[in-house]
Protein backbone atom coordinates (compact mmCIF):
# COMPACT_ATOMS: atom_id res chain seq x y z
CA UNK A 1 0.00 0.00 0.00
CA UNK A 2 1.48 3.36 -0.94
CA UNK A 3 1.69 6.55 1.07
CA UNK A 4 -1.20 8.26 -0.71
CA UNK A 5 -3.56 5.36 0.00
CA UNK A 6 -2.56 5.24 3.68
CA UNK A 7 -3.10 8.98 3.97
CA UNK A 8 -6.51 8.79 2.31
CA UNK A 9 -7.69 5.98 4.61
CA UNK A 10 -6.32 7.65 7.74
CA UNK A 11 -8.01 10.96 6.91
CA UNK A 12 -11.25 9.19 6.03
CA UNK A 13 -11.36 7.41 9.40
CA UNK A 14 -10.41 10.61 11.22
CA UNK A 15 -13.29 12.26 9.37
CA UNK A 16 -15.68 9.55 10.55
CA UNK A 17 -14.73 10.33 14.14
CA UNK A 18 -14.84 14.11 13.84
CA UNK A 19 -17.17 14.65 10.86
CA UNK A 20 -17.69 18.32 11.56
CA UNK A 21 -13.99 19.19 11.46
CA UNK A 22 -12.23 20.51 8.36
CA UNK A 23 -9.38 18.07 7.84
CA UNK A 24 -8.09 19.91 4.75
CA UNK A 25 -6.57 22.52 7.02
CA UNK A 26 -5.17 20.10 9.60
CA UNK A 27 -1.58 20.95 10.56
CA UNK A 28 0.66 17.88 10.08
CA UNK A 29 2.28 18.43 13.48
CA UNK A 30 -0.72 19.54 15.55
CA UNK A 31 -1.77 17.26 18.41
CA UNK A 32 -4.81 15.47 16.99
CA UNK A 33 -6.53 15.32 20.38
CA UNK A 34 -6.39 19.08 20.72
CA UNK A 35 -6.93 20.01 17.08
CA UNK A 36 -9.98 17.73 16.71
CA UNK A 37 -11.19 17.63 20.34
CA UNK A 38 -10.74 13.85 20.40
CA UNK A 39 -11.25 11.91 23.63
CA UNK A 40 -10.14 8.42 24.61
CA UNK A 41 -13.28 6.83 23.14
CA UNK A 42 -12.70 8.58 19.80
CA UNK A 43 -9.08 7.45 19.89
CA UNK A 44 -10.05 3.84 20.51
CA UNK A 45 -12.57 3.99 17.66
CA UNK A 46 -9.85 5.36 15.39
CA UNK A 47 -7.45 2.55 16.33
CA UNK A 48 -10.20 -0.01 15.79
CA UNK A 49 -10.99 1.43 12.36
CA UNK A 50 -7.30 1.46 11.34
CA UNK A 51 -7.04 -2.17 12.40
CA UNK A 52 -10.08 -3.03 10.32
CA UNK A 53 -9.07 -1.01 7.26
CA UNK A 54 -5.31 -1.59 7.22
CA UNK A 55 -4.91 -4.75 9.28
CA UNK A 56 -2.48 -2.93 11.61
CA UNK A 57 -3.01 -3.80 15.28
CA UNK A 58 -1.65 -0.75 17.12
CA UNK A 59 -0.77 -1.47 20.78
CA UNK A 60 -1.71 1.15 23.39
CA UNK A 61 1.95 1.81 24.09
CA UNK A 62 2.34 3.09 20.52
CA UNK A 63 -0.62 5.50 20.66
CA UNK A 64 1.65 8.48 21.44
CA UNK A 65 3.46 7.95 18.12
CA UNK A 66 0.21 8.56 16.24
CA UNK A 67 -0.77 11.76 17.99
CA UNK A 68 -0.15 13.96 14.96
CA UNK A 69 -0.78 13.43 11.25
CA UNK A 70 2.89 13.28 10.31
CA UNK A 71 3.74 10.75 13.03
CA UNK A 72 0.69 8.62 12.28
CA UNK A 73 1.48 8.36 8.57
CA UNK A 74 5.11 7.49 9.27
CA UNK A 75 4.11 4.86 11.83
CA UNK A 76 1.54 3.26 9.53
CA UNK A 77 3.94 3.42 6.56
CA UNK A 78 6.64 1.57 8.57
CA UNK A 79 4.17 -1.10 9.71
CA UNK A 80 2.83 -1.64 6.18
CA UNK A 81 6.24 -1.88 4.45
Amino acid at each position, binding site marked *: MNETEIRAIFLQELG*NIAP*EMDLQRLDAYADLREALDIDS*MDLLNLMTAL*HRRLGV*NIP*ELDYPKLMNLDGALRYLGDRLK
Partner: protein
Amino acid sequence: MTDGLVDFTMPSLGSDMEAGTLVEWLVRPRDKVKRGDIVAVVETQKGAIEIEVFEDGEIAEILVEPGQKVPVGTPLARVRKGVPASAAAEAVAAAAAPPPPRAPAPEPKVVAPRRKEGRVLASPAARELARSLGVDLAKIEGSGPGGAIVRADIVGRATAPEEKKPIGLDLAAMREAISAAMARSKREIPHYYLQHQIDVTPSEEWLARTNAGRQPADRLLFAVVAMKAVALALKRFPQFNGFWREGKFEPAAAVHVGLAIAIRGGGLAAPALHDVDRLSLDELMTRLRDLVPRMRAGRIRGSEMADATITVSSLGERGVEALFGVIYPPQVALVGFGTIVRRPWLTENEVRARSVVTITLAADHRVSDGHAGALFLDEIGKLVQEPEKL
Protein backbone atom coordinates in the same frame (compact mmCIF):
# COMPACT_ATOMS: atom_id res chain seq x y z
CA MET B 1 -56.78 -8.37 28.12
CA THR B 2 -53.78 -9.98 26.39
CA ASP B 3 -55.32 -9.43 22.96
CA GLY B 4 -56.66 -5.90 23.51
CA LEU B 5 -55.69 -2.68 21.79
CA VAL B 6 -53.25 -0.39 23.62
CA ASP B 7 -52.05 3.10 22.84
CA PHE B 8 -48.45 3.71 21.86
CA THR B 9 -47.89 7.29 23.07
CA MET B 10 -45.40 10.12 22.64
CA PRO B 11 -42.93 9.29 25.44
CA SER B 12 -41.38 11.75 27.86
CA LEU B 13 -37.68 11.81 27.01
CA GLY B 14 -36.61 13.86 29.97
CA SER B 15 -38.32 15.89 32.62
CA ASP B 16 -38.01 19.04 30.54
CA MET B 17 -39.76 17.69 27.43
CA GLU B 18 -43.30 18.86 26.77
CA ALA B 19 -43.85 17.85 23.15
CA GLY B 20 -42.15 16.11 20.25
CA THR B 21 -42.43 15.97 16.47
CA LEU B 22 -42.98 12.59 14.84
CA VAL B 23 -40.32 12.46 12.12
CA GLU B 24 -40.59 8.96 10.74
CA TRP B 25 -42.48 5.68 11.15
CA LEU B 26 -40.33 2.56 10.85
CA VAL B 27 -43.44 0.34 10.85
CA ARG B 28 -46.74 0.23 8.95
CA PRO B 29 -50.18 -1.02 9.97
CA ARG B 30 -50.26 -4.84 10.31
CA ASP B 31 -46.48 -5.00 10.95
CA LYS B 32 -45.60 -7.33 13.82
CA VAL B 33 -43.56 -5.79 16.62
CA LYS B 34 -41.67 -7.08 19.64
CA ARG B 35 -41.08 -5.27 22.91
CA GLY B 36 -37.94 -3.12 22.44
CA ASP B 37 -38.30 -2.76 18.66
CA ILE B 38 -37.59 0.74 17.42
CA VAL B 39 -40.76 1.80 15.66
CA ALA B 40 -40.48 5.56 15.17
CA VAL B 41 -38.14 8.54 15.20
CA VAL B 42 -39.12 11.61 17.19
CA GLU B 43 -37.55 15.04 16.99
CA THR B 44 -37.05 16.72 20.37
CA GLN B 45 -34.91 19.52 21.72
CA LYS B 46 -32.24 16.88 22.23
CA GLY B 47 -32.22 15.89 18.57
CA ALA B 48 -33.74 13.00 16.63
CA ILE B 49 -34.46 10.14 19.00
CA GLU B 50 -35.48 6.58 18.16
CA ILE B 51 -38.38 5.31 20.23
CA GLU B 52 -39.22 1.77 21.18
CA VAL B 53 -42.46 -0.12 21.60
CA PHE B 54 -43.12 -1.75 24.97
CA GLU B 55 -45.53 -4.48 23.89
CA ASP B 56 -45.34 -7.56 21.72
CA GLY B 57 -48.06 -7.32 19.11
CA GLU B 58 -49.14 -5.88 15.83
CA ILE B 59 -49.48 -2.26 14.69
CA ALA B 60 -53.25 -1.78 14.37
CA GLU B 61 -53.45 1.86 13.38
CA ILE B 62 -51.20 4.89 12.88
CA LEU B 63 -52.70 7.97 14.54
CA VAL B 64 -50.07 10.68 14.01
CA GLU B 65 -48.45 11.39 10.68
CA PRO B 66 -44.80 12.40 10.14
CA GLY B 67 -44.31 16.14 10.61
CA GLN B 68 -46.93 16.49 13.37
CA LYS B 69 -45.84 17.94 16.73
CA VAL B 70 -47.83 16.54 19.65
CA PRO B 71 -47.67 16.82 23.46
CA VAL B 72 -46.11 14.09 25.61
CA GLY B 73 -48.68 11.34 26.21
CA THR B 74 -50.55 11.78 22.92
CA PRO B 75 -51.38 8.36 21.34
CA LEU B 76 -49.22 7.92 18.23
CA ALA B 77 -50.47 4.51 17.19
CA ARG B 78 -52.61 1.63 18.42
CA VAL B 79 -51.01 -1.73 19.05
CA ARG B 80 -52.93 -5.01 19.16
CA LYS B 81 -51.31 -6.88 22.04
CA GLY B 82 -50.34 -10.51 22.19
CA VAL B 83 -49.79 -11.27 18.52
CA PRO B 84 -46.70 -13.46 18.55
CA ALA B 85 -43.61 -11.96 17.01
CA SER B 86 -43.10 -13.23 13.51
CA ALA B 87 -40.53 -13.09 10.80
CA ALA B 88 -41.97 -9.77 9.71
CA ALA B 89 -41.19 -8.23 13.07
CA GLU B 90 -37.66 -9.60 12.96
CA ALA B 91 -37.17 -7.94 9.62
CA VAL B 92 -38.33 -4.60 10.96
CA ALA B 93 -36.07 -4.92 13.96
CA ALA B 94 -33.09 -5.85 11.81
CA ALA B 95 -33.59 -2.84 9.54
CA ALA B 96 -33.68 -0.49 12.48
CA ALA B 97 -30.91 -2.00 14.59
CA PRO B 98 -27.33 -0.73 14.44
CA PRO B 99 -25.20 -2.56 11.87
CA PRO B 100 -23.21 -5.57 13.08
CA PRO B 101 -19.51 -4.80 13.56
CA ARG B 102 -17.66 -5.35 10.34
CA ALA B 103 -15.04 -8.09 10.14
CA PRO B 104 -11.52 -6.77 10.69
CA ALA B 105 -10.41 -7.48 7.12
CA PRO B 106 -8.42 -4.80 5.37
CA GLU B 107 -10.54 -3.05 2.74
CA PRO B 108 -8.73 -2.63 -0.51
CA LYS B 109 -9.20 0.99 -1.36
CA VAL B 110 -10.83 4.28 -0.53
CA VAL B 111 -14.18 4.30 -2.27
CA ALA B 112 -15.00 7.65 -3.81
CA PRO B 113 -18.52 8.95 -3.05
CA ARG B 114 -20.85 7.08 -5.43
CA ARG B 115 -22.88 9.24 -7.73
CA LYS B 116 -25.07 7.15 -10.03
CA GLU B 117 -27.31 8.20 -12.84
CA GLY B 118 -30.86 8.56 -11.60
CA ARG B 119 -31.97 7.19 -8.27
CA VAL B 120 -29.51 6.23 -5.53
CA LEU B 121 -30.03 2.76 -3.99
CA ALA B 122 -31.26 3.31 -0.43
CA SER B 123 -33.71 1.79 2.05
CA PRO B 124 -36.92 3.76 2.63
CA ALA B 125 -35.95 4.34 6.26
CA ALA B 126 -32.53 5.63 5.20
CA ARG B 127 -34.14 7.88 2.61
CA GLU B 128 -36.50 9.29 5.20
CA LEU B 129 -33.69 9.86 7.71
CA ALA B 130 -31.53 11.54 5.08
CA ARG B 131 -34.43 13.86 4.27
CA SER B 132 -35.02 14.76 7.90
CA LEU B 133 -31.31 15.41 8.47
CA GLY B 134 -30.73 17.24 5.21
CA VAL B 135 -28.10 14.70 4.09
CA ASP B 136 -27.37 14.26 0.37
CA LEU B 137 -27.73 10.53 -0.39
CA ALA B 138 -25.55 10.86 -3.49
CA LYS B 139 -22.56 11.58 -1.26
CA ILE B 140 -23.06 8.56 1.01
CA GLU B 141 -21.38 5.19 0.61
CA GLY B 142 -23.84 2.31 1.09
CA SER B 143 -23.04 -0.76 3.16
CA GLY B 144 -26.34 -2.63 2.66
CA PRO B 145 -27.18 -5.41 0.20
CA GLY B 146 -25.94 -4.48 -3.30
CA GLY B 147 -24.33 -1.31 -1.96
CA ALA B 148 -27.68 0.11 -0.85
CA ILE B 149 -27.58 2.91 1.67
CA VAL B 150 -29.07 1.94 5.03
CA ARG B 151 -29.80 4.17 8.03
CA ALA B 152 -26.49 3.36 9.66
CA ASP B 153 -24.58 4.74 6.68
CA ILE B 154 -26.14 8.14 7.06
CA VAL B 155 -25.51 8.61 10.69
CA GLY B 156 -21.90 9.43 11.52
CA ARG B 157 -21.00 10.14 7.90
CA ALA B 158 -19.94 13.55 6.70
CA THR B 159 -22.64 15.55 5.02
CA ALA B 160 -21.64 17.71 2.10
CA PRO B 161 -18.15 19.08 2.91
CA GLU B 162 -19.45 22.64 3.16
CA GLU B 163 -21.69 21.67 6.08
CA LYS B 164 -19.18 21.09 8.87
CA LYS B 165 -21.53 20.46 11.74
CA PRO B 166 -22.73 17.48 13.75
CA ILE B 167 -25.41 15.53 12.00
CA GLY B 168 -28.86 15.08 13.37
CA LEU B 169 -28.38 17.24 16.45
CA ASP B 170 -29.77 20.70 16.89
CA LEU B 171 -27.09 22.06 19.20
CA ALA B 172 -28.92 25.31 19.88
CA ALA B 173 -32.05 23.45 20.95
CA MET B 174 -29.95 21.03 22.99
CA ARG B 175 -28.23 23.92 24.73
CA GLU B 176 -31.64 25.41 25.55
CA ALA B 177 -32.85 22.14 27.05
CA ILE B 178 -29.70 21.86 29.17
CA SER B 179 -30.07 25.48 30.29
CA ALA B 180 -33.59 24.88 31.49
CA ALA B 181 -32.77 21.64 33.30
CA MET B 182 -29.62 23.01 34.94
CA ALA B 183 -31.28 26.25 36.07
CA ARG B 184 -34.16 24.26 37.53
CA SER B 185 -31.73 21.89 39.25
CA LYS B 186 -29.82 24.59 41.10
CA ARG B 187 -33.05 26.38 41.99
CA GLU B 188 -34.67 23.30 43.48
CA ILE B 189 -31.97 20.83 44.53
CA PRO B 190 -29.83 21.71 47.55
CA HIS B 191 -26.48 20.45 46.26
CA TYR B 192 -23.70 19.38 48.58
CA TYR B 193 -20.27 18.37 47.34
CA LEU B 194 -17.64 15.86 48.43
CA GLN B 195 -14.17 15.32 47.03
CA HIS B 196 -11.74 12.42 47.35
CA GLN B 197 -8.41 11.55 45.75
CA ILE B 198 -7.39 7.97 45.10
CA ASP B 199 -4.39 6.18 43.69
CA VAL B 200 -5.51 4.42 40.50
CA THR B 201 -2.11 3.11 39.48
CA PRO B 202 -3.17 -0.54 40.03
CA SER B 203 -6.25 0.06 37.93
CA GLU B 204 -4.26 1.64 35.10
CA GLU B 205 -1.75 -1.20 35.19
CA TRP B 206 -4.51 -3.81 35.09
CA LEU B 207 -6.09 -2.06 32.09
CA ALA B 208 -2.72 -1.83 30.31
CA ARG B 209 -2.05 -5.55 30.90
CA THR B 210 -5.54 -6.54 29.81
CA ASN B 211 -5.50 -4.38 26.68
CA ALA B 212 -1.97 -5.43 25.66
CA GLY B 213 -3.30 -8.86 24.70
CA ARG B 214 -6.33 -7.54 22.84
CA GLN B 215 -7.14 -6.11 19.45
CA PRO B 216 -8.38 -2.50 19.49
CA ALA B 217 -11.97 -3.67 18.99
CA ASP B 218 -11.86 -5.49 22.35
CA ARG B 219 -9.96 -2.99 24.51
CA LEU B 220 -11.39 -1.42 27.64
CA LEU B 221 -11.39 2.20 28.76
CA PHE B 222 -11.11 3.53 32.31
CA ALA B 223 -14.62 4.98 31.90
CA VAL B 224 -16.21 1.50 32.14
CA VAL B 225 -14.26 0.76 35.33
CA ALA B 226 -15.55 4.04 36.76
CA MET B 227 -19.17 3.36 35.76
CA LYS B 228 -19.16 -0.18 37.06
CA ALA B 229 -17.66 0.93 40.38
CA VAL B 230 -20.39 3.55 40.77
CA ALA B 231 -23.09 1.00 39.89
CA LEU B 232 -21.84 -1.54 42.43
CA ALA B 233 -21.45 1.08 45.15
CA LEU B 234 -25.07 2.08 44.54
CA LYS B 235 -26.22 -1.42 45.58
CA ARG B 236 -24.97 -0.62 49.07
CA PHE B 237 -26.04 3.04 49.00
CA PRO B 238 -29.44 3.09 47.24
CA GLN B 239 -30.22 6.61 48.45
CA PHE B 240 -28.14 7.98 45.56
CA ASN B 241 -29.97 5.96 42.88
CA GLY B 242 -33.39 7.19 41.88
CA PHE B 243 -35.60 10.22 41.55
CA TRP B 244 -37.00 13.07 43.59
CA ARG B 245 -40.64 13.31 42.55
CA GLU B 246 -43.56 15.12 44.11
CA GLY B 247 -41.77 15.97 47.29
CA LYS B 248 -40.22 12.60 48.01
CA PHE B 249 -37.44 10.24 47.00
CA GLU B 250 -38.30 7.24 44.84
CA PRO B 251 -35.44 4.75 44.87
CA ALA B 252 -34.92 3.06 41.48
CA ALA B 253 -34.97 -0.73 41.22
CA ALA B 254 -32.46 -0.86 38.37
CA VAL B 255 -29.13 0.94 38.01
CA HIS B 256 -29.15 2.90 34.77
CA VAL B 257 -26.05 5.09 34.64
CA GLY B 258 -26.25 8.26 32.56
CA LEU B 259 -22.88 9.09 31.07
CA ALA B 260 -22.26 12.78 30.35
CA ILE B 261 -21.03 12.94 26.76
CA ALA B 262 -19.70 16.14 25.23
CA ILE B 263 -20.79 16.77 21.67
CA ARG B 264 -18.24 18.59 19.55
CA GLY B 265 -19.57 22.04 18.85
CA GLY B 266 -20.96 22.62 22.32
CA GLY B 267 -23.64 20.04 23.03
CA LEU B 268 -23.93 17.80 26.04
CA ALA B 269 -26.10 14.79 26.77
CA ALA B 270 -26.16 12.06 29.36
CA PRO B 271 -27.83 8.99 27.83
CA ALA B 272 -28.24 5.94 30.05
CA LEU B 273 -26.45 2.62 29.94
CA HIS B 274 -28.95 0.13 31.35
CA ASP B 275 -28.37 -2.29 34.22
CA VAL B 276 -24.72 -1.35 34.61
CA ASP B 277 -24.48 -3.29 37.88
CA ARG B 278 -25.28 -6.54 36.07
CA LEU B 279 -22.96 -6.18 33.08
CA SER B 280 -19.36 -7.34 32.88
CA LEU B 281 -16.72 -4.75 31.96
CA ASP B 282 -16.60 -6.26 28.45
CA GLU B 283 -20.37 -6.05 28.01
CA LEU B 284 -20.33 -2.50 29.31
CA MET B 285 -17.58 -1.57 26.87
CA THR B 286 -19.59 -3.00 23.98
CA ARG B 287 -22.60 -0.92 25.02
CA LEU B 288 -20.47 2.19 25.43
CA ARG B 289 -18.90 1.78 21.99
CA ASP B 290 -22.38 1.55 20.53
CA LEU B 291 -23.75 4.46 22.54
CA VAL B 292 -21.14 7.20 22.17
CA PRO B 293 -21.06 7.45 18.36
CA ARG B 294 -24.85 7.07 18.21
CA MET B 295 -25.21 9.88 20.71
CA ARG B 296 -22.82 12.13 18.83
CA ALA B 297 -24.65 11.39 15.60
CA GLY B 298 -28.00 12.12 17.20
CA ARG B 299 -29.31 8.53 16.99
CA ILE B 300 -30.38 7.92 20.50
CA ARG B 301 -33.27 5.85 21.82
CA GLY B 302 -36.04 7.32 23.90
CA SER B 303 -35.48 5.06 26.89
CA GLU B 304 -31.79 5.94 26.89
CA MET B 305 -32.58 9.63 27.16
CA ALA B 306 -35.21 9.39 29.83
CA ASP B 307 -34.40 6.87 32.47
CA ALA B 308 -30.89 7.34 33.88
CA THR B 309 -31.04 6.86 37.65
CA ILE B 310 -27.72 8.64 38.35
CA THR B 311 -25.16 10.48 36.20
CA VAL B 312 -21.41 9.93 35.90
CA SER B 313 -19.30 12.72 34.39
CA SER B 314 -15.74 11.90 33.46
CA LEU B 315 -13.35 14.61 32.27
CA GLY B 316 -11.21 12.16 30.33
CA GLU B 317 -7.56 12.68 29.47
CA ARG B 318 -7.43 16.30 28.49
CA GLY B 319 -9.39 17.85 31.31
CA VAL B 320 -8.70 19.09 34.79
CA GLU B 321 -8.47 17.49 38.20
CA ALA B 322 -11.91 17.88 39.71
CA LEU B 323 -15.43 18.84 38.75
CA PHE B 324 -18.38 19.80 40.93
CA GLY B 325 -21.38 19.37 38.71
CA VAL B 326 -25.06 20.06 38.54
CA ILE B 327 -27.42 17.16 39.27
CA TYR B 328 -29.73 16.27 36.37
CA PRO B 329 -33.27 16.40 37.80
CA PRO B 330 -35.16 14.38 38.88
CA GLN B 331 -31.97 12.42 39.73
CA VAL B 332 -30.40 12.96 43.14
CA ALA B 333 -26.67 12.48 42.56
CA LEU B 334 -23.84 13.07 40.11
CA VAL B 335 -20.41 11.43 40.40
CA GLY B 336 -17.48 13.23 38.75
CA PHE B 337 -14.16 11.70 37.73
CA GLY B 338 -11.37 14.18 37.04
CA THR B 339 -8.48 13.67 34.67
CA ILE B 340 -5.96 11.13 35.93
CA VAL B 341 -2.77 12.98 36.91
CA ARG B 342 0.71 11.88 38.03
CA ARG B 343 1.45 13.01 41.58
CA PRO B 344 3.87 12.22 44.37
CA TRP B 345 1.95 9.83 46.62
CA LEU B 346 2.58 7.78 49.73
CA THR B 347 2.60 4.02 49.23
CA GLU B 348 3.90 1.87 52.07
CA ASN B 349 5.14 5.07 53.71
CA GLU B 350 7.33 6.03 50.80
CA VAL B 351 6.77 8.89 48.38
CA ARG B 352 6.42 7.56 44.85
CA ALA B 353 5.10 8.79 41.50
CA ARG B 354 1.55 7.47 41.15
CA SER B 355 -1.53 8.00 39.00
CA VAL B 356 -4.16 9.82 40.99
CA VAL B 357 -7.79 10.60 40.23
CA THR B 358 -10.07 13.02 42.08
CA ILE B 359 -13.60 11.67 42.51
CA THR B 360 -16.36 14.09 43.46
CA LEU B 361 -19.98 13.68 44.47
CA ALA B 362 -22.75 16.24 44.02
CA ALA B 363 -25.82 15.01 45.88
CA ASP B 364 -29.30 16.16 46.85
CA HIS B 365 -29.33 17.11 50.53
CA ARG B 366 -33.10 16.46 50.69
CA VAL B 367 -32.32 12.78 50.22
CA SER B 368 -28.86 12.10 51.64
CA ASP B 369 -26.28 13.78 53.79
CA GLY B 370 -22.53 14.22 53.89
CA HIS B 371 -21.91 11.18 56.07
CA ALA B 372 -23.68 8.78 53.70
CA GLY B 373 -22.17 10.58 50.72
CA ALA B 374 -18.67 10.13 52.12
CA LEU B 375 -19.18 6.40 52.63
CA PHE B 376 -20.58 6.10 49.10
CA LEU B 377 -17.64 8.00 47.55
CA ASP B 378 -15.15 6.00 49.59
CA GLU B 379 -16.75 2.76 48.41
CA ILE B 380 -16.50 3.92 44.77
CA GLY B 381 -12.82 4.72 45.36
CA LYS B 382 -12.12 1.24 46.74
CA LEU B 383 -13.95 -0.48 43.89
CA VAL B 384 -12.10 1.54 41.24
CA GLN B 385 -8.80 0.34 42.70
CA GLU B 386 -9.66 -3.32 42.08
CA PRO B 387 -10.96 -3.50 38.50
CA GLU B 388 -10.24 -7.23 38.29
CA LYS B 389 -13.04 -7.80 40.80
CA LEU B 390 -15.62 -5.72 38.96
